């Protein structure tokens, strides 16, 4: 009889048909849009129930007349009924108009745009460093599970993880700023221009980024460690070792790529939250970013600003979730569409 000649179903090479990709994408986008809509509604009604007359708060402690207050109310559309305000707000949102900040008297969108770059710089650098550090140390810790490297690593990470961010920031200021040669706050020294400016910004970034990394990297470390530990017992690693691969290669070529899958999505998911999490670091280090803006908005409270930032932060998380959804199939052939 003939040799067994299997005719395997044509191995689905990678991506799948454009139509299915389109359907997948459309599904994800729709989900993101739904979340966004929900966030919008929440943001509006959540902040409308804030106590206090915003106009009063705005002018607190200053000499104002009733007419001035009324004028302010009119300017901010606070004299209209709630339903109308909501419609205005929604239509504004579609035009990327998040209203006008009470304290800056500038469009919130503009304020956000102004502050976006510093936050992205800070949170981006922080996350990147934290991820690289966390993943690397996590790999080491898992590979040497139970040894000194692991214990020191995990212990340190967990300790830092348990420390309140702002407290750590303050401690760093006490120890390193001023006398330690690092600036205590801000993003740049006024007047420094040219190539020195980049260095200057880097100099200002050291402490805030260190704070951010210290608190965040533990998470990546733990995820990578446990993810790698689950992979550790896997049969395919035995196969790899049986093939005669050096342990370092087994780790690099086989274990890490597999363990990286859950971790990378997590990095993405976290990224969304990190931007919002920058509030503390930015506040402590006077970093002129979105977090600081939020903090300032809170103190008044500056309703359109806080609301706008809330929407913006949520949109960031939604976007990152979407990216994670889109990136995951690229990384893991098993879930390719």
């Amino acid at each position, binding site marked *: 009889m003939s040799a067994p000649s299997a005719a395997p179903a044509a191995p689905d090479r990678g991506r799948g048909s454009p139509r299915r990709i389109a359907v997948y994408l459309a599904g994800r986008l729709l*989900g993101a849009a*739904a*979340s966004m809509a*929900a*966030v919008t509604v*929440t943001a509006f009604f*959540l*902040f409308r*129930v*804030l*106590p206090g007359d915003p106009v009063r708060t705005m002018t607190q402690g200053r000499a104002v007349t009733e007419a001035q207050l009324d004028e302010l109310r009119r300017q901010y559309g606070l004299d209209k009924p709630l339903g109308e305000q909501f419609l205005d707000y929604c239509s504004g949102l579609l035009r990327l108009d998040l209203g006008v900040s009470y304290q800056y008297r500038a469009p919130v969108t503009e304020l956000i745009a102004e502050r976006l770059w510093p936050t992205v710089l800070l949170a981006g650098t922080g996350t990147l460093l934290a991820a690289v550090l966390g993943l690397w140390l996590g790999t080491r810790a898992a590979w040497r599970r139970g040894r000194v490297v692991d214990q020191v690593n995990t*212990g340190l990470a*967990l*300790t830092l*993880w*348990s*420390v*309140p*961010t*702002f*407290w750590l920031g*303050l*401690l760093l*200021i*006490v120890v390193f700023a001023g006398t330690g040669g690092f600036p205590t706050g801000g993003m740049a020294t006024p007047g420094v221009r040219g190539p020195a400016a980049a260095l200057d910004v880097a100099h200002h970034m050291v402490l805030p980024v260190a704070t951010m990394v210290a608190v965040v990297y533990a998470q990546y470390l733990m995820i990578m460690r446990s993810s790698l530990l689950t992979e550790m*017992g896997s049969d395919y690693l035995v196969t790899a070792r049986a093939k005669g691969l050096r342990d370092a290669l087994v780790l690099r070529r086989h274990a890490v790529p597999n363990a990286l899958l859950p971790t990378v999505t997590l990095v993405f998911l976290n990224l*969304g*939250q990190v*931007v*919002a*999490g920058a*509030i*503390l670091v930015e*506040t402590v280090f006077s970093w002129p970013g979105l977090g600081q803006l*939020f*903090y300032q908005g*809170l*103190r008044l*409270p500056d309703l359109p600003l*806080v609301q706008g*930032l*809330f929407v913006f*932060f*949520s949109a*960031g*998380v*939604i976007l990152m*979730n979407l990216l994670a959804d889109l990136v995951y199939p690229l990384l893991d052939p098993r879930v390719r569409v």
Partner: protein
Amino acid sequence: MSGTPARPSPRALARQRRRLALSGFWRRYRRHRAGLLGLAGLVLFVLLALAAPLLVAPGDLSVTRAPHDAYQPPAPAHPLGTDNFGRSLLDLVVWGSRVSLTVGFLATLVSVGLGTLVGITAGHYRGVAGAVLMRVTDWFLVLPTLVLAVALATVLSRSTLTIVIAIGITAWPTTARLVRAQTLAVEARPYIERSRALGGGHTHIMLRHVLPNVLPLVLAQTTLLVASSIIAESTLAFLGLGDPGTVSWGGTLQDARRAGAVSSGVWWYLLPPGAAIALVALSFTLCGRAVEGALDPRSREGR
């Protein structure tokens, strides 16, 4: 065939079983040295919080007749120094543990309770109900936690309860997600199908099979959540959203910062409450990880 005279009642059996399970759990837990350390820290702090009224005289926390001078560095009479009113920082830390731990536990209770309920329900009912629940969870998950907590704390009136609610409400989706995933895993196990084939209804399956099997996860999640809730409490206080009328660690930190302690060389105002938060959070985290480890079937002995 049923000739054995002294047959234990099912209730006694259940008790015995529970005792056995507990001792087994404890045996496995004991193997985690860090977990024991965490547990010790935890017990210490809980005892401290419970004993606070005995350790701190009511007058010691009075702002008008504080026992010491303001801003005194650590000395035998006040081992951790004093604050701007002349109250001993040690007293403040001891007393603050009450609020901080209460907030930590209550917020965790809220979020774990809510999360477990939603998670199991969403995982069990596959139809529209589950999908809707999951959508809601997803949507909550999308809201930036800190921002939402801050917003809630701003919106609601300022009190410890508000903080509990703000933290509880922002933390539950994570639990729900976890519980749902675990529920799905449990529901895929053949014993659920067996139970259905035996005639068990939804409630039976959820209560008898799913809940006990997700509980360990919930327990581990609980300990981890307490840690983050305590940190969250201090964060909210730091952002000025705490209840200034009560003594809590976060509140004390906030007071220290407001007083400019960092730049005034009054390090003892800043250090103790922060260290206390970090220690408690670390204790809970270590416990949580040890619980996780002890419940991990892979670490079980036997087959």
